[in-house]
């Protein structure tokens, strides 16, 4: 548990909390990018360089931008009159708390069995590439198809209907 770990934790959790609590939707989006960045730092801290950079590229470079675009397109940036939280926010919070309690309990209960510090694994990008087209070629293909389908689907869903196609 190094100092770095605590710093990143603070950053990430703060980002996450802010993104869920702030009133202004755009602020939330920006805050969540902080959380994403924090997670990327976590990955780097875990010697998963590739995953970390991929995280930044995908989430900050793409998802965050998508989100802010969506916010602006749906006029979501101005805060609604009747509060930002749904009417039944209390039960939701309770359930989330319950989930956290459950998870935390499980982790702490089994913490003693978890492995301690292990030697740093050396993973080159080359190895990852080999794995991607070797052992994991099938998942790779499937993900490729999925992405294509998702892209087309998103376009079709968000596209303006022409007259008469309704």
């Amino acid at each position, binding site marked *: 548990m190094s100092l770095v770990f605590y710093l990143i934790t603070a950053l990430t959790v703060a980002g996450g909390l802010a993104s869920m609590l702030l009133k202004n939707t755009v602020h939330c989006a920006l805050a969540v990018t902080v959380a994403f960045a924090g997670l990327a730092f976590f990955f780097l801290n875990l010697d998963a360089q590739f995953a970390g950079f991929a995280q930044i590229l995908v989430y900050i470079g793409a998802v965050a931008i998508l989100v802010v675009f969506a916010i602006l397109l749906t006029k979501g940036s101005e805060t609604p009159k009747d509060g930002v939280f749904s009417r039944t926010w209390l039960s*939701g919070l309770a359930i989330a708390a319950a989930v956290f309690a459950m998870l935390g309990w499980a982790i702490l209960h089994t913490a003693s069995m978890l492995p301690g510090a292990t030697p740093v694994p050396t993973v080159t990008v080359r190895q990852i590439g080999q794995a991607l*087209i070797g052992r994991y*070629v099938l998942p790779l293909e499937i993900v490729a198809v999925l992405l294509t389908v998702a892209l087309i689907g998103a376009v079709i869903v968000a596209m303006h209907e022409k007259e008469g196609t309704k």
Partner: protein
Amino acid sequence: MQEAISFTPQLTASPIAEILWMIPAVPIVAAGLSALLKQSRRKASATLAIASLSFSLLLSLYAFAHVVRAWAIYGAAREVVNLTWFQTGAVNVDLGWVLDPLSAVMLVMVSFVGLLIFIYSTGYMEHDENYTRFFCFMSLFAGAMLGVVISNSLLLLFICWELVGLTSYLLIGFWYQKPSAAAAAKKAFLTTRIGDVFFLLGMVWLFSQSGTLLFYNHGAGSLEPSALAGLLATPAALGLTAAGAIGLLIFAGAAGKSGQFPLHVWLPDAMEGPTPVSALIHAATMVAAGVYLIARVYPLMHAGALAGGTTTALTVVTWVGAFTAVFAALIAVAQNDIKRVLAYSTVSQLGYMMAGLGMGGVAVGMFHLITHGFFKALLFMGAGSVIHGCHEEQDIRKMGGLKSDMPLTFLTYAIGMLALCGFPLLFSGFWSKDGILEAAQHWSVAKAPLYMLVFGALLTAFYMTRQVAYVFFGYWRGGKPALESPAVMTVPLAILALFAMALGLIGTPAWPWFRAFLDGHAAAFAWSGFLEPGLLTLMGASTFVVFLGIGLAWHFYSDRSPSPQEPDELERVIPIAWGWLRDKLYVDEFYGVTVIAFYEGWARVSDWLDRRVWGGVVTGVAWTFGLWAQLNRFLDNNIVNGTFDKGCDELGVGGGLLSRVQTGRVQTYLRLLALGVVLLAAILIWSSRA
């Protein structure tokens, strides 16, 4: 990438085995090319198809010769080339092809008959505007079929198998403007699909058990002793071993393709397609693919049989085959469509093959398959020639006396008919059927199949003679007079006729070359082959039966009056039974009734569920309904839909009552979800501690 797909064969096989893949590949490529051709490039497409298939034929002949040589030298000859398609996780997915007597024989048969039919169809399809499409599909089919033949991995076989099914669908529905054709195509596709589901199950099971789908892989294949032992060790349900159960599942797939009894309904309707298609796909090759598949996995079916004994799987195969043989023959007696008669006869002959496989082993069944492939193709092409000559008339009651108008067709057709009847000594059908009967005679389990098959032989002789009498003898009952077909159609007929006679000689008891070849031991010529106990009596019996059938039919049908409306002679004798037979023993109707009964039961059950269980089930049941409707649409449209709508309305009502729970708010659902997770986890933890 090299790691992922390494196309290096795992051992060095002979050059011909190395390039065996070209046999199916070339026609498929040809199909791809002719798919790009313009509709007007008729000659080009035909040339492409014929050239590619002739290439395949040459290769096949070479491969055949190679195998024969190897067999002469080493006895058994089997070469496999396997390669890894891709690997995911620890699992290798392998493909491969095998060159052994079985595949070699089949290769030659398929490519030879196929080539003849291609040439024939250049004449037959002359006036069709979708000529190019036709040849594209045909060569695609040929390629896929050859792929089925050579494949050494159940996966590859399944892929080609599905391709074959697809092309069959496309070709039955070739004249999709005719609603009947479209319906027939759908029916064929879906019916075979039922079988294929079981096939798939069997395949997956086999994979999970033996870890490979390769048939032969130098001791590591799934059909080789080590794997078979493992399969025998693992018990399945109903006292079957895993081997038996998998075998039966695969047999279900085979039954679907080659129209065995429960799933035979599609084959007669498939005659909606062009006649060359019926000849190639639904007589000679594709329907035989099922039989070939069983022959291929015979070790699996036969595994665990004691000396001279049999296994459950094989017994099932036998009974299904024998029953189909008689059943279809009965129906064939009362058909008036020239092609339908042949279709039912095909079904019954396939039954013979299955029975032969079940009782006598690979050689017996395969021999009948090969001979049947030739003479049934001959018959279909003859029928096509007749139809062509009679200006697309298919009803035999409106024909007659053609023996003078179309002498060549008549001659060849007569030869084919005699071969199919099993006319003694001169015709191949006699020897191959005799082999099956002999096997039935020595079968240890029961004698009933023997009698069924003999009866079947009688019927076969009867209905074939009836047909010939109708078509070629008596007076011309049609409209404008018939014309002989062009040489491009009759020459292939002649060639096939030659084979329909000569081919029998490689399988006589005196010189069982074919059996020896397939079983991998030397063949010797000895007249003493005839002197085995009971053999001569059996031959005498079958000969007598054949003559009896021909004689009866001749007695009934030799002198028909010129009026096409006049009822069938047999109908006068046994009107009720006749009606039954004419209506194909009401199988389709029977399916309709049973399924509908099942339907209403299901409707009531689900209705009851709805009144009590909440919305999730509602959609579930509705979905199942949808599935059933999909699956049964081709059976009996109007009634099914009636029940279906009724059921859905009631579901709607029930759903309306019960879907009050759903507030339509996403977050509510998410909340319930999370809550459920927590509760489950809590239960889990609590139970694990207590």
